[in-house]
């Protein structure tokens, strides 16, 4: 890693730190930065309500942002390199649709079929369970498809088709469901980073680490994939193994994050591009830390915007990521020649 890139990485990490403090400070109740720093130094807050807001809500939420930012953007990076497609993201293999189907069955099947299929939709753990089950279901189906299908483009198309198929089931469920259930599902699909308590956070962190380990061992293989499948194989890369690594890593990462936070839009597609743009490289030993850092930075920024002071409630996170993500992608498409990189 040369000097320019190390400097950039340090800047990104510093910005993450600053933004994290801002994120903890801002919200419907503002905690001044000074008090926050004193609290970190060990002095208690002047108001005990701040302590509760920080420890029970903002801190776990910001840690969720950290995990989701790393997990989603690294999933996106792996997908884009593996499929050599700039539009690939963590959800192209249908993971979010699968999770969505699980949640839709939980929340809406009650009225649609007249029976409660899965647990109590009001309980946050049953939401997580339903989303995980749905994501795992699609992951297993994709695994079976990967067994049969040899080339990566076909796999990509199969993934998109799975996504469409599950979406159509969700649409049917939505059509027959009652208004309040539909709202419950719609709110889930807007994403929510603030629903993970400390206990959930432990599980999420475990899953994200589990998903990252195979990806870290595949850094070299992803570099080889820049030259395409045939070159990669000629350099001794086991392509089938890499494919399973990719499916498992992105499946575990996006599956667990979607289970706890709902489908978070745009981060997975946009962040790897932003990292390439900022660090001017395609080498994955640089792009992995860079993408993770930029992912945390962007999602922290989006989350901070969603809870800006002066608003009684926070905005849905997907409204913010999309509002930022869409212009970003348009800007990048205008500015860059993707044909050199994909």
């Amino acid at each position, binding site marked *: 890693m040369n000097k320019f890139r190390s400097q950039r990485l340090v800047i990104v990490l510093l910005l993450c730190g600053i933004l994290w403090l801002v994120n903890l400070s801002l919200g419907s109740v503002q905690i001044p930065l000074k008090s926050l720093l004193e609290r970190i130094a060990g002095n208690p807050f002047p108001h005990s309500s701040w302590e509760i807001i920080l420890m029970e809500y903002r801190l776990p939420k910001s840690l969720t942002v950290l995990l989701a930012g790393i997990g989603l953007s690294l999933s996106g990076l792996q997908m884009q390199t593996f499929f050599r497609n700039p539009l690939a993201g963590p959800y192209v293999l249908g993971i979010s649709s699968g999770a969505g189907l699980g949640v839709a069955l939980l929340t809406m099947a009650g009225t649609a079929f007249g029976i409660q299929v899965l647990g109590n939709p009001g309980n946050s753990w049953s939401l997580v369970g339903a989303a995980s089950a749905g994501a795992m279901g699609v992951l297993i189906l994709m695994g079976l498809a990967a067994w049969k299908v040899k080339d990566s483009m076909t796999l990509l198309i199969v993934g998109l088709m799975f996504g469409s198929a599950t979406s159509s089931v969700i649409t049917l469920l939505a059509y027959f469901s009652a208004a309040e259930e539909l709202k419950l599902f719609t709110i889930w699909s807007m994403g929510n980073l603030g629903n993970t308590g400390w206990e959930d956070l432990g599980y999420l962190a475990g899953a994200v680490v589990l998903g990252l380990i195979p990806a870290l061992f595949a850094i070299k293989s992803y570099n080889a994939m820049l030259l395409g499948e045939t070159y990669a194989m*000629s350099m001794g890369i086991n392509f089938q193994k890499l494919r399973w690594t990719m499916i498992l890593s992105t499946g575990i990462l996006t599956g667990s994050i979607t289970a706890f936070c709902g489908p978070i839009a745009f981060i997975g597609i946009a962040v790897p591009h932003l990292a390439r743009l900022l660090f001017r*490289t395609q*080498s994955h030993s640089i792009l992995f830390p860079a993408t993770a850092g930029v992912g945390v930075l962007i999602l922290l920024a989006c989350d901070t915007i969603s809870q800006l002071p002066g608003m009684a409630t926070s905005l849905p996170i997907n409204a913010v990521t999309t509002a930022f993500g869409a212009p970003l992608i348009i800007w990048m498409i205008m500015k860059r020649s993707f044909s050199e990189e994909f």
Partner: protein
Amino acid sequence: MENPENRQSDKEGFVRANDLELGYRSGAKTHRVASGVSFSLFRKELTCLMGPNGVGKSTLLKAIMHQHPPLKGEVWLGNSPASHLSEKERAKRVAVVLTEKIATGLLTVRDLVALGRIPHTGWWGQLNPVDQAKINEVMELTSISQLAHKNVSALSDGQRQTALIARALAQDSPIMVLDEPTAHLDLSNRFEIMYLLRDLARKASKAILVVTHDLEVALETADKLWLMDARQPLLTGSPEDLMISGGIQRLLPGKKWRVDAVTGKIIRNTAPLPCKIEGPEPLVSWVKNALRKNPELNLPDTIFLSENPFSIKATFSQNQHRFDSISEMIRFLQERLKQKISF
């Protein structure tokens, strides 16, 4: 230093195969592309694999790379059959340059070349001093050291091809296989790349196999030619021997074309021109060239050519005409044809 495993006798090729059946399996079906293929590829030699499209040249390459293992028979890489080697061991014996598009616009040339070290590095891909030295060495060898920090997207086609060759060299394998490395290059780069490969074969003691359609360059640079056509198994030999024996004609199936036995140029089989042409070479050849392109014309009885200044004297049964250029004569003959038709 020579790896003892890679040592070999001089008589046997470094890559060799006997009576291969080439093809691929898709599902329960097998598609046979060629059979009875035998060959020996030697170190320090540049070998060109030539033949019409669709006869199985790529399948043969893929058999050597072990991506489509042969349906029958074994390809030996050094002292072991390809199928007995692990992916990594194969990568240390065979490096490739392919035709497919690479997506490394944001990598520097040095990063690209460094990718060749992948079979030699640990799981993180960290380069040790040995790797660094090898990268420097191959960039020196291919004269691209001054491009090291340029992005691959900023290279010309010829430079990019050279960088890809350097990447294959960095893989440090005794065998290099290249699929049409000169396909999109301009005239001088076609020669540059092939001379570079010829040089590398000797200096770095590589066995190099190049698929090409470029007969002119192959005749000039190759130590051996492997000719493939749809009917018979591989025919191998030095380009000169194949020219003399006429084996080279297998490149051009059908009766329409042939390789000129003197120049090695591809020419169309035509009846001799019904016209006597006299004068010095190369003037006569070029006039013939122009007349062959216009077979509909009625030719003069005799044509006399003279140099300095160039002039053409054409005699018809009754009269004589003079021209200062070939195109002037052709125009005249075309006019004459039109008048004849209108009468």
